[in-house]
């Protein structure tokens, strides 16, 4: 048996793509399927470099449609499988992931957002929020974690496998080109030493015994003959999702209790917002910080509660209101004034957030 990739804990300084590869190894991922696209390429590079030593597998496919479908196939065979993509690759992957939603398959996908629409830039954005949370011809029966630091990239990539296999919904780790390419420190660890047990996997097909005699037959469907048949299945799925949502939803917040204005952001932009809120507080501004960690499902109750206490909410994102739309839906009926700082496809610094708040507050 190959040795564990990480013995105990160790401090590391590396790129986010490398972090994802280490996290997948630590989580016991057995196979990655993928097709290259910047800025996620190095996830594949590091994975393929490391897997021979740890007896894992990699398959490069001809495109992202195929990478998505082979990941679906890996999961059907009971493998802890994942893929990674970005931008137009994420667009193509919505088709296979829609199938994963239809069959409740615990596929794990890491997305490193780049500029859009289309090829746009290979650099960075937060413009894949709508697509990653609600893409495909379905109801968004999936989980999306938006990470902000390398430590979180590691933690939530491991967690994504467990969330996926526990609840049986496709699960995404939503990073971006900055997180993919930057280097910062984190602690790598073997999940077991932190008391994290990996949820066991099992094959969906090819189980032992005679179907119908020794066990119920496996009946995987993504197609239905009549409307009512589909409706019945979806009702069950939606009920399962609604039940799981409060258990899955995560957020981070501070200084919201007495805040007039609460800044809402996610992912790497929340780093700028966190620094901005601290600086503004020191300057006497009554501002607060709210960051959904799960973009799907959103921490709806906590968002509504926060909106109910403050006068203004300012959504800050590197997109033209993709998080904003999700937040507005979640707090529908609230009378809080909604403000924004949108910079589609461009990074946001704490200086910009500070000056925007000062502009508003005078």
């Amino acid at each position, binding site marked *: 048996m190959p040795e564990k990739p990480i013995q105990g804990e160790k401090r590391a300084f590396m790129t986010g793509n490398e972090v994802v590869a280490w996290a997948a190894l630590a989580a016991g991922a057995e196979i990655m399927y993928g097709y290259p696209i910047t800025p996620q390429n190095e996830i594949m590079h590091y994975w393929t470099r490391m897997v021979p030593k740890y007896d894992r597998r990699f398959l490069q496919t001809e495109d992202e449609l195929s990478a998505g479908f082979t990941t679906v196939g890996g999961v059907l065979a009971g493998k802890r499988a994942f893929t990674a993509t970005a931008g137009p690759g994420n667009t193509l992957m919505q088709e296979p992931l829609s199938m994963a939603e239809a069959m409740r398959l615990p596929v794990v996908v890491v997305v490193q957002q780049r500029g859009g629409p289309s090829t746009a830039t290979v*650099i960075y954005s937060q413009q894949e929020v709508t697509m990653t949370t609600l893409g495909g011809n379905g109801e968004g029966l999936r989980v999306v974690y938006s990470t902000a630091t390398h430590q979180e990239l590691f933690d939530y990539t491991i967690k994504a496998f467990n969330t996926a296999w526990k609840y049986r919904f496709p699960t995404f780790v939503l990073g971006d080109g900055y997180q993919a390419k930057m*280097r*910062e*420190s984190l602690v790598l660890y073997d999940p077991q030493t932190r008391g994290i047990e990996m949820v066991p996997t099992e094959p969906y097909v090819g189980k032992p015994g005679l179907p119908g005699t020794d066990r119920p037959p496996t009946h995987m469907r993504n197609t239905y003959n009549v409307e009512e048949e589909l409706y019945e299945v979806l009702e069950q799925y939606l009920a399962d999702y609604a039940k799981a949502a409060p258990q899955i939803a995560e957020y981070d917040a501070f200084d919201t209790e007495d805040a007039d204005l609460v800044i809402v952001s996610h992912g790497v932009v929340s780093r700028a917002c966190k620094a901005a809120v601290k600086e503004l507080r020191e300057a006497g501004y009554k501002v607060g910080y709210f960051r959904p960690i799960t973009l799907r499902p959103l921490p709806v109750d906590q968002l509504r509660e926060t909106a109910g206490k403050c006068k203004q909410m300012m959504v800050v994102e590197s997109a033209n209101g993709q998080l904003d739309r999700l937040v507005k839906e979640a707090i529908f009926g609230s009378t809080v004034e909604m403000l924004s700082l949108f910079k589609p496809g461009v990074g946001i610094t704490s*200086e910009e957030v500070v000056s925007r708040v000062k502009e508003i507050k005078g």
Partner: protein
Amino acid sequence: MGKMVKIALAGEGGQGVQSVAQIIAEAANEEGREALYIPNFGVEQRGGVSVAYLQIGDEPIGAPKFQTADIVVALSDRAVRRTNQYVGPETVFVYDNGIENIEEDLPKNAKKVLGIPAIEVSKKELHPRVFNIIIMGAVIKATEVVAVEDAKAAIEKKLGYKFEKNPKLREMNFRAIERGMELVASVM
């Protein structure tokens, strides 16, 4: 120590600004400090100016990029023009004074503008291949973000396998760091 330091390094592809930033970041990390380094890596990078953004401090670091740097190092005419946007009243701007026809483009609003003959020194005294290590010495002197011993240790970690074969390379690299520090010290 204490305050967070924001550094922007810019040059032509091949001048080694990315590896300088990475080695300094790794040295800071080895010291147990917080460090964040991000390159610009767009298609622009191919045939454009290469920019490295580096932040070092004692608290967790915020956004990976910033608007105003504490120190800007520009190593070509295009890099000088490109990095003007990162200069504010508190910025120390370091450039190579062997670059021609850039007097007009040097920032007017910087705290200090320091010209150093790094290209010339690398060619005449050392070797062009340690040019970026001279720059590294200059950055370390101007910012004091890491101790010189830790910077040397980080170089050793990265290039040690080459030094094993040719110990003279080690000597030259360490000399380059020291020369870089001297160049900045003489104009500060």
